[in-house]
């Protein structure tokens, strides 16, 4: 009984409260980007050299798309993808010049949502459907997303996809432990939040390990002893479009 009344009052409250909360929050948000609070901060390191070694390998994409019921839509215009391979010059447009190393020019680099510390998509979402949880993962509340696609326009990495149509006909083997999406909502990599909750490593990392490639490494950045932190301290890594100040959590060893 009270749950629903709370729901109802929230509606009334939000409408009435609109006046009060809006100016205060507006002041806070325009005063500078929300600072990343401490707690776990999942990050991923991608060793592009190892990935390059296994030519034409799509283990990570297949595993991820299978686990999360991501549809295989033929026409590229309405494609939905969470993680996929991109040429190096596309992934790192401002770190390329005509005379770069040949292997680098057509090296396939896995790209996915960077789960930025200061995500522009979260900033622009009019209903806070996409938001950054305490573990640093930028996730989407599929129940609240109104499909305005403002977040896709705001994402500098183009890692968000929109369901232009009902994905289900394009799903051969629907996993029953994870919901699919429906037409009209945005979706993207969620760092396998549901697997992390069960203590497993993300599907793509696990697939990369089973494919004896080991290009993907996943860990908690806030724990200095974690493998990821140690690797970052010892090897030179770069991030995509660092100049935009979004502070992505996916690092690339080139």
């Amino acid at each position, binding site marked *: 009984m009270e749950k629903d009344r709370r729901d109802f009052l929230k509606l009334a409250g939000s409408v009435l409260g609109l006046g009060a909360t809006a100016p205060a929050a507006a002041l806070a948000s325009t005063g500078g980007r929300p600072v990343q609070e401490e707690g776990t901060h999942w990050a991923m390191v991608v060793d592009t050299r190892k990935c390059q070694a296994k030519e034409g390998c799509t283990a990570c994409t297949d595993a991820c798309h299978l686990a999360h019921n991501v549809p295989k839509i033929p026409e590229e215009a309405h494609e939905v993808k969470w993680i996929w391979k991109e040429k190096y010059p596309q992934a790192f447009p401002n770190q390329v010049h005509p005379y770069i190393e040949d292997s680098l020019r057509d090296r396939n680099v896995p790209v996915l949502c960077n789960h930025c510390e200061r995500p522009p998509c979260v900033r622009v979402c009019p209903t806070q459907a996409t938001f950054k949880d305490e573990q640093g993962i930028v996730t989407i509340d*599929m129940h609240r997303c109104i499909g305005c696609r403002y977040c896709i326009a705001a994402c500098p990495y183009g890692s968000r996809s929109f369901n232009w149509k009902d994905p289900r006909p394009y799903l051969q083997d629907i996993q029953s432990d994870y919901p699919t999406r429906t037409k009209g909502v945005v979706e993207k990599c969620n760092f396998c939040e549901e697997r992390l909750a069960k203590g497993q490593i993300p599907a793509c990392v696990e697939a990369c390990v089973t494919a004896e490639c080991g290009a993907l490494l996943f860990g908690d950045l806030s724990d200095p002893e974690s493998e990821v932190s140690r690797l970052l301290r010892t090897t030179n890594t770069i991030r995509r479009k660092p100049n935009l100040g979004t502070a992505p959590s996916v690092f690339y060893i080139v």
Partner: protein
Amino acid sequence: MASRDTGRIVVGLVIFLVLASFPVWFSATQGRSDYRPELEYPAGETKCVESKEYMRTWHMDLLNQWRDSVVRKGVRTYTSDAHHTDYDMSLQNTCMKCHTNKANFCDRCHDYVGVSPKCWECHVEPRGAE
């Protein structure tokens, strides 16, 4: 002394009565008026997350609450008020583990009452349904 247009009035009345009695003859023709959905309860299971009455009335709110908790707060375990066991807050992984056949359980009651929740546009029915 009936007036000239009694005929037309009677026709009007008949149309009204036919429309008003729509549920009666519609259900009669469908022949399912005494049908009551008996839900196929999971074999071997005796207790649900909460009591039967509570679930019949509040399951949609419970699921809403689970959604907010999981998606928004990241809390994934729910301790039942009835018998204090913990459950994983997930429609597909918890509810659907026991109620493997959506058609014979959820849909029967939903169709009977004319409700068409949108949850199943995304959430996946258990494979047992095929």
